């Protein structure tokens, strides 16, 4: 007997798989540094955006995710440049430090949550910027810290050299994006993820069911902090410099915009789509050399997305709608997405 194949489920997933496979194989087609570093940076933003989306899942609205990138980036930059540590331990330490800061801030602020949380995370990103700017002896102030690529790794007779080409760093970023996406996807599918959605949907009900709201919020915020810190470390070492103004309030808002445009109904797909599309778009707009056009269009894009794709379904929902409506020509039905 033929096993039943749900082709409506399998074919879109195969297409996604092929796209991912193509991205993995990009260094085979082109080793152009500009293309690769654009992909690297959009991957790094994608990790940060995934963190933001995880926090948003619990109904909390963080405006300081770029601050965690800055904490991670400065941690690994300080340890490699000032203390002479190799790249790898400082890379992991960046995640740990960022996670600890997220844990402490979360334990203080997530008691109240809501608007207070947004305001305090916004203040946090300003605090990080001021400290990075004023603590001259450690962070070199506005001049920034000059970092370098990771040291070469030798595996048997084969050597991975990060200085010779951008390809190894591309794969390093890709690995971290894949790991983050996998972990976040598993969290979203697990009991923990359903608890997150539950406390966002109805905090009062969740509390009466015996869920300790703050615990789940702090877990989400800390996990997001760890991965955002790792992304920040990659960011600092990829640009080989980190300055106080690189990761401030505007970058936090940019992360929020990428998340909303990509769609918050999925923890991995939406953020990756949003980050890649908006980062590429933003880089193109910067090349036009018209000051302010990037902010103007980013702001307009969010307004349009929220007006025409309501409830934060974002672009990732268009993908499903494309298959349902254009390819399979199904009847209309309302997708149920987690409300605010």
């Amino acid at each position, binding site marked *: 007997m033929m096993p039943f194949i749900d082709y409506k489920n399998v074919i879109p997933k195969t297409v996604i798989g092929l796209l991912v496979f193509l991205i993995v194989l990009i260094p085979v087609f082109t080793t152009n540094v500009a293309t690769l570093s654009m992909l690297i940076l959009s991957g790094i933003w994608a990790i940060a955006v995934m963190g933001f989306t995880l926090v948003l899942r619990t109904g909390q609205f963080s405006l300081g995710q770029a601050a965690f990138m800055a904490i991670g980036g400065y941690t690994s930059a300080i340890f490699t440049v000032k203390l002479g540590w190799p790249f790898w331990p400082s890379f992991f330490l960046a995640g740990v430090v960022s996670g600890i800061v997220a844990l402490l801030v979360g334990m203080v602020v997530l008691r109240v949550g809501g608007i207070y949380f947004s305001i305090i995370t916004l*203040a946090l990103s*300003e605090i990080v910027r001021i400290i990075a700017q004023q603590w001259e002896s450690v962070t070199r102030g506005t001049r920034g810290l000059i970092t370098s690529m990771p040291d070469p790794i030798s595996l048997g007779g084969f050597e991975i050299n990060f200085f010779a080409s951008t390809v190894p760093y591309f794969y390093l970023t890709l690995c971290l994006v894949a790991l983050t996406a996998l972990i976040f996807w598993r969290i979203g599918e697990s009991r923990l993820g359903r608890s997150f959605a539950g406390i966002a949907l109805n905090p009062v009900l969740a509390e009466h069911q015996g869920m300790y709201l703050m615990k789940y919020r702090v877990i989400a915020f800390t996990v997001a902090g760890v991965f955002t810190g790792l992304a920040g470390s990659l960011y600092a070492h990829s640009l080989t410099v980190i300055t106080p103004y690189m990761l401030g309030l505007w970058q936090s808002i940019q992360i929020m915009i990428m998340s909303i445009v990509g769609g918050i109904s999925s923890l991995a797909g939406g953020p990756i789509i949003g980050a890649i599309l908006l980062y590429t778009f933003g880089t193109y707009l910067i090349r036009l050399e018209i000051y302010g056009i990037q902010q103007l269009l980013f702001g307009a894009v969010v307004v349009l997305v*929220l007006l025409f794709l309501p409830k934060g379904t974002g672009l990732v929902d268009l993908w499903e709608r494309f298959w349902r409506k254009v390819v399979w020509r199904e009847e209309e039905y309302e997708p149920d997405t987690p409300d*605010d």
Partner: protein
Amino acid sequence: MPPAGIWIDGLIQSCTYMTMAFGMVLVFSILGILNWTHGQFYMLGAFVVYYAITAAGIPFFISIGITGLIIAGLGILIKKIIIDQVQGDLYISVVTISLIFFFEGAASMIFGMQDKGLAMVLPGVINLGSFSVSYQKIAVVIFTLVVMIGMYIVLNYTKVGLAIRAAAQQPDAASLYGVSVERLSFIVMGIGCALAAMAGGIMAPLYTVNPFIGGIPMIMSLLAIVIGGIGSLTGAIVGGLILGFLNSVVAYHLSYFSEVVLFVLVIIILLVRPQGLFGASLK
């Protein structure tokens, strides 16, 4: 003890933060959302006053009134075509935050990124013994006093004010008694935006004008709201006063780290008294 100039600077800053925080709380109490774009209305107000004086030659005080009207119209327009169409409180916050980007981008494209200085429109100083105060600064203080007293009279002794207070307390009950909360929300949005714009306009001759001046007043008035308690108008005024004086006095002693001190203070207040100094208990 810092010199008197520092205290006067603190008073000027308090005036801005008070006016902006007052508008934000007013909008919050009726609409139930924080208008994160408030700082950008401050910036646009400063630009309107700058161009009204330099390009059209309109007198200073009339141009401040014009600014209030224009930006109130803009705020009502945004409420009508964007905020009302978006569903969900969370996404309304997202929209108003991304409008920050939109307005700053638009302002830097239209007006240019460079600093613009407005000449003192009210020249002259008043001598008070050991120090002197310019008329411009006195105008800021008087303007804030007039606005606050005006808002007090409107809120306490007129029908609109009664309706606003009722709708802030119990929107459903207010609408049962014939108050159109919908129309009221437009009025309140207009008043809030006009207050921010007029604060920006009255401060324009004191500082430079560029597309990014809205950020600091916005963050500060947000912190003032947190100190005073979200939803409390008295809290907004007291929070603005505390923050303005503290900012300039601490900056006198600690220079750049003053903002860190302020943020830490706000976090401590959140820990000890999450509802703020004047707020009712949290919802």
